[in-house]
Structures are given as C-alpha cells and as structure tokens.
C-alpha cells in the first residue's frame, strides 16, 4: 500500500497525502520560526540580566 492510498481516508481523498503534507510542512516551519524567535529573545534577556548583575 502506498502512502497516497494509506492517507486517502482523510478529506480530499487521492490528494489527501499531498495536501496535508504541504500544510504540515508549512505549519512546522512557521511554528519553529516563532518558537525560535521567542526563545532567542528570552535567552538574550537572561544573559544580559546575568551580565549586568555580575558587573554591579
């Protein structure tokens, strides 16, 4: 059984595998970008907090 047949129970039948794969990859990329941006910002603030408390 191919992947296309396996996923054909989902909406969009014979195209289900391709449509959901494309939407899935995009969602993953966007979520990674967002979490990464948030985490970098937090880390920068934390390391600057450390730096300033050492200097005082």
């Amino acid at each position: 059984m191919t992947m296309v047949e396996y996923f054909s129970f989902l909406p969009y039948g014979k195209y289900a595998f391709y449509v959901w794969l494309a939407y899935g990859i995009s969602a993953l990329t966007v979520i990674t970008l967002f979490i990464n941006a948030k985490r970098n910002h937090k880390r920068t603030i934390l390391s600057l907090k450390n730096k300033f408390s050492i200097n005082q």
Partner: protein
Amino acid sequence: MWKWIQRQASPKVFYGTCSRLTPWFFWPFISLLLVGLYWSLVVSPADYQQGDGYRIIFIHVPSAILSMMIYAIMAIAGGIGLIWQIKMAEVVAKVSAPIGAAFTIIALTSGAVWGKPMWGAWWVWDARLTSELILLFLYLAYMSLNSAFDNPRTAAKSSSILAIVGLINLPIIHYSVKWWNTLHQGYSVGTGGLKDPDMQIALAIMFLASIFLYALLVSIKARTEVLIREQNSRWVKEEVSGVVL
C-alpha cells in the same frame, strides 16, 4: 507620520515600538490564519481540473509572494542603512533574512509536494523553480556573509551590497513563466487564473495572514537584535532589569 518614522532610527524608540506592535501583529495573524484556513479547506470548491489537489495554492502562492517581498524589503532596508547610516534599518534587514528564507523553503517544498501529483515529479529544472531556488541561495549567502564579521556595522555593509545586487533575481522569478516555456503554470493572481470568488477570498486572506506573520516575527527578532547591539547603553540595562521572566 514622517516625524514618527524618523524617530524610529533611535534604538530605544524602535525597541518600544516593536514591543507595542507585537500583540497588534499576533492577534490579527491568528484570526486571519483561522478564517483563511477555513476558507481554503472548507468553503472553497474543488477545482475542475486539479480536484482538491489545488488547495496547496493557498500556502504556496502567499509564501512565494512573501519570499520575494521580504527580499525586496531586506535589500531596501540594507540600502537605507548604507546610504543614511540608519542602524535600525540594518537590524530590519538582518532579521528579515531568516524569515524570508523560511518562506522560500515553504514555497519550494509546497511546490514540490504539489508537483508530484500534477506533473509526476517532485522537482524539475524549470525556470520558475530554478530562479526561486537561487533566491533561497541568495538568502543563505546573505546570512552567512552577515555572520562572518564581528563588527555588526561592517557585516551590514557587505551583506547589504550582496542583497542589492541580488535584487536582479526578483523580476527573473516573476517573469520566468512568461519569458520561458515553463512546466510551472502561469499567473494565478490578477489575470483570471483563479476565477472562483471563494478561492480568491481564501487566497487574499492567507496572503494577509502571511504579511502579519512576517511583521510579527520581525517585531520579535528585531528586539533581540537591538538588545544585543545596544547592550552597553543605559536604557538596555533598565529595560532588561525591568523584565520579569
């Protein structure tokens, strides 16, 4: 308005503007995304030739347009940084690059996944696909050149020149389906490629959502970059000590 833009050249003012604007980008993005997905996946009818397979268009076209738009913004901001020595323009250019690269990757992968059922191949060396791949390489070149220097000003200068030279690729991508005989289909927007009003509305909403996503990511990443660049100034010290994590 012009005065307001001029004031953004100050790192402290720009940081404050980004902080204030972040929720104004986040919530419209989420609501437009939800409505857009509903319109793309439920409301829009199936295509008469491509069936339901065409639904990939609602992420493919917005991300492809954004990949080019962000490149143009990056090059223009880089140019503003070069000509008027505005450091905040350099910041916008620098943080735009990884976002633009991500949109290019989404455009390329969603295109490949669309190509497989429609053309029978994940990838062909067609003019549209090849020029879009070159765009991805331009983003990667910009990012590696930018990180190759210790001094952020020197990095911004050399990478901005690269970005401006790379602008030549944008019209090549846009007109590639006209100039060459490509396997890639012609224009979907503005020429009657997409005729159903529901399809057009879905595409427009997804495009708006993508713009808000870009603005949201810039407003977060630019703040991080400003903090790093201005870490020796007093306002950063006050700002950072005021934040409770």
